[in-house]
């Protein structure tokens, strides 16, 4: 599979989940595990451009796919608009749910663009749990990133 733009290969047991393959075989520990029931969303990555919970699929199912993790979302030293918005709006505290949040919000904006509104953000965050922020600043960060990315898209046209 391709992970963050690089071809990778590795051996694992059949039962190995994608999240464990990323964390233990590839040592990409930015993707986290926060529950056992696919509820918390700390493990969200992008699989062929779509947000998925990497605890909900086997590593072998991702064979041949393009995977992007939190480590691959910035361009070199340049943070993505969503990463920047999380920092500017204090959208994180302990940081544990943050990688999953950023991957989910990035996916959300790719589908809704600058049309993204508060109700949609809150509804689409149903699969990501944060215990620190009360979601207030995460929602603000998502909306700000959406409007900035939307403006950038318009400017590019």
């Amino acid at each position, binding site marked *: 599979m391709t992970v963050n733009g690089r071809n990778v290969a590795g051996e694992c047991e059949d039962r190995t989940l994608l999240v464990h393959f990323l964390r233990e075989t590839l040592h990409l520990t930015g993707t986290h595990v926060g529950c056992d029931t696919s509820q918390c969303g700390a493990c969200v990555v992008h699989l062929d451009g779509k947000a998925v919970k990497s605890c909900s699929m086997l590593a072998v199912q991702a064979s041949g796919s393009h995977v992007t993790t939190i480590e691959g979302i910035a361009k070199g030293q340049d943070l993505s608009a969503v990463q920047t918005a999380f920092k500017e709006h204090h959208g994180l505290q302990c940081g544990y749910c943050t990688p999953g949040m950023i991957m989910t919000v990035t996916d959300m904006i790719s589908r809704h663009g600058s049309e993204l509104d508060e109700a949609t953000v809150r509804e689409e965050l149903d699969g990501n749990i944060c215990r620190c922020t009360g*979601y207030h600043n995460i929602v603000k960060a998502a909306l700000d990133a959406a409007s900035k990315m939307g403006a950038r898209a318009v400017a590019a046209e």
Partner: protein
Amino acid sequence: MGVEGIGAKVLRKEDRRFITGMGRYTDDMSVPGMKHAAFVRSPHAHARIVSIDASAARDMPGFVEFLDGQQLKADGIGNIICGWQVTSKDGSPMKMGAYPALADQIVRYVGQPIGIVIGDTQAQARDAAEAVMIEYEELPVVVKGPDAIKEGAPQLHPEAENNISFDWEIGDAEATAKAFENPAKVVRLDILNNRLSPNPIEPRATLGHYNPAEDHYTCYTTSQNPHVARLVMSAFYNVAPEHKLRVIAPDVGGGFGAKIYIYPEEIVCLWASKRALVPVKWASDRTEAFLTDAHGRDHVSDVEMALDADHRILGLRVNTIANLGAYMSLFSSATPTYLYATLLSGQYNIPAIYANVKGVYTNTAPVDAYRGAGRPEATFLIERTMETAARELGISPADFRRINFIRSFPHQTPVIMNYDTGDFEATMEAAMKTIDVAGFEARRAEAKARGKLRGLGMSCYIEACGIAPSKAVGSLGAGVGLWESAEIRVNPVGTIEVLTGSHSHGQGHETTFAQVVAQRFGVSVDNIQIVHGDTDKVQFGMGTYGSRSGAVGCSAISKALDKVEAKAKKIGAHLLEADEGDIVIENGEVKVAGTDKKLAWHEVCLSAYTGHNLPDGMEPGLKEGAFYDPQNFTFPAGTYICEVEVDPETGVTEIIDFVAADDFGNIINPMIVEGQVHGGLAQGIGQALMEGVNYDETGQLVTASYMDYAMPRAWDLPMFKVETLVTPCTTNPLGLKGCGEAGAIGSPPAVINAITDAIGNNDLTMPATPEKVWNAINAVA
């Protein structure tokens, strides 16, 4: 205020590693040769262990070792302790049931660890753990606090007759009885404070590493207080001598109290690493977290409030049964006593208070401090009673509180606390204005026209942070001092390292603590590094809990800065040939006041280290340390108002608006303070609306996953309206009161007061699930 000093909204220095996936949490750590642990846990709430057979496990692939409680005991590993000795009203010490890190005879809650399996991989360790065969003889079970003290209840510990650890009291029983002799009115309520699971999103984890070549131990762990962990593991559990044990709490993914305590898994992994001569890592899964992380709250209380004809409170009488779980956790005795009943005066002048608290054992996980720790229980009890009294008197809840507010400070309550400052009316007025209380009846009518029930609920909380002074808490039974330490290391180039005993696990200390230093010398926060969480780097510290890092941790930093400043001024005066009293340090410069004579900060720092031109007799270097022991608690206070809309068809409650007006004293970084309030509100609203740990009658935990335990999600919460008013704390150098727990303390009664206002039925317990609300509506319909 400078752009980066105290009061400035400085973006967090620590964020970059978290938003790029470069945070380093305990489960991210690995060392060569590391193996993985799985714990064999009791499936029964109360049972005698008849036999343990690990022979099948030993044949499993990847098996490394199995160890049990007999071996633990034979190696002299001590029982888990409670660090606060509470004395019952008859003068007897609390009764502590023996709590071994691995049960060797009796198990008393589901999930209690019995053995550890070490395997090559986590999956192999878990497979092998399932193959360990244990024969049990089941014993009768009790799970509710009030049931535990009934006649004939199953008995948990031979040490604790009738399952009572302590039967404690506070206040003046006689004076309180007198207040109830001839009152104009008595308000009575039964209060349940629901049991919660703290649920930091990072589950607990530990990596124990014994190095036989050096006879040295390293423990990575998800701790809020690594030095306390080191002290307790060495002095009480005999796992490793203190000078040979390094405890590292790296990035920690939330704590909320659950990561204060030293748990069996940390002790056992470190011990097992020495037994098996391999590094041993264990990472909890979420179900284990629900089963074994210390729970919070779980009080059953009754309260009576006596009032005179002018609606003034004459007295308050409270009886509480606090469920301690099966064993006493580290601070489990202090939470329902000194952190709870000392706050029962609330924001009000109450001449007489008496409270009795019984701490009782049940076949459930240990219960200890969870965000707020005792103060949410006190606030919920007082503020539900205040709102109920106002309704029964037929006056507005605000007016009833106005009549009874404390208005002069310092104020001595009948329950130990001495409030230094506050302006309770100001925070209440601010909250009422922001939520537009005046316009509420129109909004209620508009909702009614749509078939919805609107309600408004208020909560005026006061809490206590920075628990102290050490001498006082020592006299009340604390086993440790509650000071904090700091060391300021100024480098020769003028950059500064701050070593602090506080631990940051989301609070943003790497930014706010740097702001305190930036304020003092005008050095950029980018040139200030905060070092914490490693016992090899920081000399000692008491850690982060009880909203103490500002009020106590920053006070220690401030005290150490005083010493650095004094020495830097001496050097500056010497170099500038000026009088020491004329030297000022600001904006990164050391100046002679009223002249243009000055040196850059780094020039003075370099001089301190070259030693070429220092005052006679002065030691080189610029490094100072301080220990700070507070004079008093600090008392954050405020008013929270919640507006809800209930759908009478479904019982679903929607939070329409939530306003928080807090007085935290001075504020270092308003952005971070607001974030702390938001998170606290979410947890308090979670408690009020949806969260609840439930055991069935056999002691099985039926809320052991996120499918069963309702965590607040984004769609459950509104955008919060948060504002702060300031009366600086008078007892610490920076005037800080603390902001970490207020949101969780003040919000539950505001929500329940709002729902009961909406539905016209005051009989409603937390969590106010749609089912309960619907039933409450229909009970009065």
